[in-house]
């Protein structure tokens, strides 16, 4: 015969707490999802960042070959510079976003749960 559970062990949370818990979990999932997306996007962009000016120049020239109106060398150079800058900016912003998400209260709470105390910020 199985032992009956002690009533004290069955803690039924109030309805409001259940709702808030569900919302928090949904938000938490969402933060993790954004974090994953940001990381994936940053990694893709970093592939192009690693190509450097030379690689991006190959990319722009390759695209130029496919187009009907070939660009002048100066225009290609300008486009490469602009592309490089926008990639660097996007990577820096995504990096900042990732850090922001990591520092969010929700993820910070996880640290607290794991250690039973507040973990001081590093920033």
């Amino acid at each position: 015969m199985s032992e009956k559970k002690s009533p004290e062990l069955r803690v039924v949370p109030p309805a409001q707490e259940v709702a808030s818990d569900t919302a928090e979990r949904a938000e938490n999932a969402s933060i993790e999802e954004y974090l994953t997306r940001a990381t994936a996007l940053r990694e893709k962009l970093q592939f192009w960042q690693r190509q450097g000016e030379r690689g991006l120049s190959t990319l722009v020239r390759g695209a130029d070959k496919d187009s009907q109106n070939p660009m002048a060398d100066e225009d290609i150079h300008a486009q490469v510079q602009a592309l490089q800058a926008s990639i660097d900016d996007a990577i820096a912003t995504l990096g900042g976003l990732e850090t922001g998400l990591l520092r969010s209260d929700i993820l910070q709470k996880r640290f607290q749960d794991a250690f039973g105390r507040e973990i001081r910020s590093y920033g």
Partner: protein
Amino acid sequence: MDDATQLAEQLLQPLHERYIQHKKDHAASGARTRDGISGAEAAWDVTAMAIPIGVDIMKNAQLENTKDQRETFGMLIKQLSLLPGPHHAFAKQFADGRGDANTAYQLLHSYTCGERTSKRFQKLEIDPHWGKADLENTEELVREAETLVKEVKEKFATIEIISSQEVSKTYQEMRELFGEHGFFGIEENEKAFTLKNGEKLVDMSPAQRTEAQRLLEEKLRELRIVALVERVRSGEINKDDWMLILRVPTITVPAGSGGIYVEEVSEALERAVRTGSGTSRGGSRIVPLTMQTMQEYLAPDMLARGQSKLLYDIGWYRNEAFYTMQQSGNRDTSPESIAASGGVGAMHWQMVTRDVLTDSLYKNHTEQTELVRNSYGIEARRRTPVEIVQDFFLRLRSVGDRTMCKPYKDDWSDVRTARGGFVSVGGGVQIGLRVYADAPLDRHGRLGVSPSY
């Protein structure tokens, strides 16, 4: 590719397929090859120059089969040594009776450029052919990043986009916490990798610097590291027992230098890097940071500065994969693994104990691993040989500290040689770092372990 080279590639293909199958047959379930059979071991087995794993010499059929395999390999070598191509140097070594497991591995990979199995033996494409669609996709990625940031800002009002200045604060804080003998970041790497003539082998761009700082921020969020840093802060553990190290996976060397490395020894790795991430920067070449590239480009500079030798004698291991191919930041030595990470290993941070654990001495490899896991958790791991050399080099060049660990003690890695021993690196006195291979069951007072995260 001319006909002769194409023919050589075709001749090698069946052997390569057998090698892949053999590796699969003996790999631990779901694990990388180092957990089951290494690439070099598998390559050596398919040559049948020695009795391969799993062959029972008491069974005639198996023994006969092995003899046939050896004969076929001998004939293949005769043919390959007559044909030009990237395989030639390795085939020639076998033809001259000098081939070993590592040569077999390099021979088998002389036509692969690091793709995953399904793409092996495709024609090597060094110059990328990007077109309009690629440019549009790249621009789309930039736009997607902007949209993502906007979306997050709208959804979570409290989340801030942390600027690079803020990330930089964390970096500075860690620098102060660990001090000059324990923190090896951007500046320390750049200083260490600057040659006497002023040439910088590590010269990080502003974007790379920001990325390094962001990676530190990320590292400091790992639960194990959070706990460790907290204990360092509170003084519960001695900060001098730990080092926080930025690992750079590549160095930039002058174009045209290092001919031996490029043309003969690490052809596959070089190609993997070339196809993966572009290696040219203003007339220079980017090469992976391996023990071999350190020996080739940095050891002469150490001698020039009166810092004595980097490695004592590379004689016995000059063809071993841990020396020629294992790159800082990569656990695996195979070109496939390196290519899988985008051509080169990734820049990352590592927390390393400054010295070998006293308790780990006089223990065999398995007992040491248990000790590390019990005391430091399952995330803790040993350093690879290239990481041990890199850390010694960083300490020597940044703060003039030549002691790698306790006198006469070696750090025992979990990287195997072609013959199966585990590589240990130690010493560090004026004669240069000594590198040994020790059998897994060995116990010795000089063999210890420095755990890292």
